[in-house]
């Protein structure tokens, strides 16, 4: 069953590549806009790099997840998910994981390119990748929770309003980790905090998303 879910997500992404790539395109675009707008002052760029990367990653994740459940809800397949044999939190977790692999993993591949554009050194980029790898799954889970809660309601603003307060700590820790690396200090504490957030998110959010989906179908 889990293989079937992954296979379906991959097939859907392959047939509708625009959905899957929109996050990546957004990330690269936002990351490239800042140097254009702020000028080529390399010291300034290096300083703002962690923050810009993380905000771009957060927005890219939020942008993509809005559509996570929308199409399934519209064509009725969400009802079949709720009626399936496996537990809904498990199915939801697999779906979000598959979406992360398809839509968010490309961000990790694009991040070093952006990092070099901002003049970051290799050690910082390594920490950036580690931080993104730990933080973006939590962000995906939170965005999925927001999408499930606001399913069927018009307007994306409510989704953002619900998800943003919970994702701010991850933003702060992630950006802090990279800043520490840039200053030559240890980034492990911040990375551990990101890992803790991920553990908490993995424990709690699939159940909450399943509850929210059942509510949306009522």
């Amino acid at each position, binding site marked *: *069953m889990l293989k079937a879910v992954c296979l379906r997500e991959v097939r859907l992404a392959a047939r509708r590549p625009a959905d899957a790539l929109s996050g990546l395109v957004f990330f690269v675009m936002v990351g490239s806009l800042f140097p254009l707008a702020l000028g080529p002052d390399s010291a300034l760029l290096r300083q703002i790099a962690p923050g810009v990367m993380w905000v771009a990653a957060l927005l890219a994740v939020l942008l993509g997840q809005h559509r996570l459940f929308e199409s399934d809800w519209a064509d*009725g397949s969400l009802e079949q998910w709720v009626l399936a*044999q496996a537990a809904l939190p498990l199915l939801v977790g697999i779906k979000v994981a598959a979406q992360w692999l398809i839509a968010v993993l490309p961000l990790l591949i694009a991040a070093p390119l952006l990092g070099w554009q901002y003049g970051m050194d290799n050690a910082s980029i390594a920490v950036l990748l580690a931080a993104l790898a730990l933080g973006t799954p939590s962000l995906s889970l939170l965005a999925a929770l927001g999408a499930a809660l606001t399913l069927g309601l018009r307007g994306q603003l409510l989704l953002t309003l619900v998800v943003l307060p919970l994702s701010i700590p991850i933003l702060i820790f992630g950006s802090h980790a990279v800043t520490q690396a840039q200053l030559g200090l240890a980034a492990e504490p911040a990375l551990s905090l990101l890992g803790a957030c991920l553990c908490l998110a993995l424990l709690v959010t699939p159940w909450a998303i399943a509850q929210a989906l059942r509510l949306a179908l009522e």
Partner: protein
Amino acid sequence: MGGVAFSSLHLAVSGWGCVRNGRVLFRQLAFELASGQALVLKGRNGAGKSTLLRSLAGLLPWRAGALSWGGQSVRTSDAAYQQQLAYLGHQAGMSDALTGLENLQFALAMGGIAWNPAQAAPVLHALALNEVASRPLGRLSQGQRRRLGLARVVLSERPVWLLDEPDSSLDDAGGACLGQVLAAHLAAGGMAVVATHHGLALPQALTRTLDLSAPREATC
């Protein structure tokens, strides 16, 4: 078509009620259904046919009433009860971007059934889906999508069918297919709750009718 037979089953609902948008649609609804019987839900639009079907499927919470399966009282969230159901709603329940076959394979996998082309072929043939099953769902007409949904229900090997207007968008040939498929299911010992405007081409002895347009309390 399909070699699945079901042993004697019994479904009973008592005291069911529903509230939609702050208005009580129904109070104290009761019915019983045994193996080989079909319950036909009739009523005007908005009478609550879909609501009853969704409540039976476990998609809507029960705010009143009791459900019993095989003589034992259950809740719609119990796994033992859920595994007996196959639900076909208003929409196809399948993704537009995948082909019919891929959708069926996925739906069966969700129900824990392995895909067996030999078993599926007669069902697809009976529902006249052989040519269209390998096309993406988004390119099919409404009637073809409905028949694919029916194919999913048939292949799921579940005893209780909950069908919400399965005959909508079907032409005469499609309606005949639906009648055949339902009759075969009932003959094999299954049961069905079907909401329809037009009525089904089934023997009178096998069907019971519940009219939801009648005064707000009804038993059958």
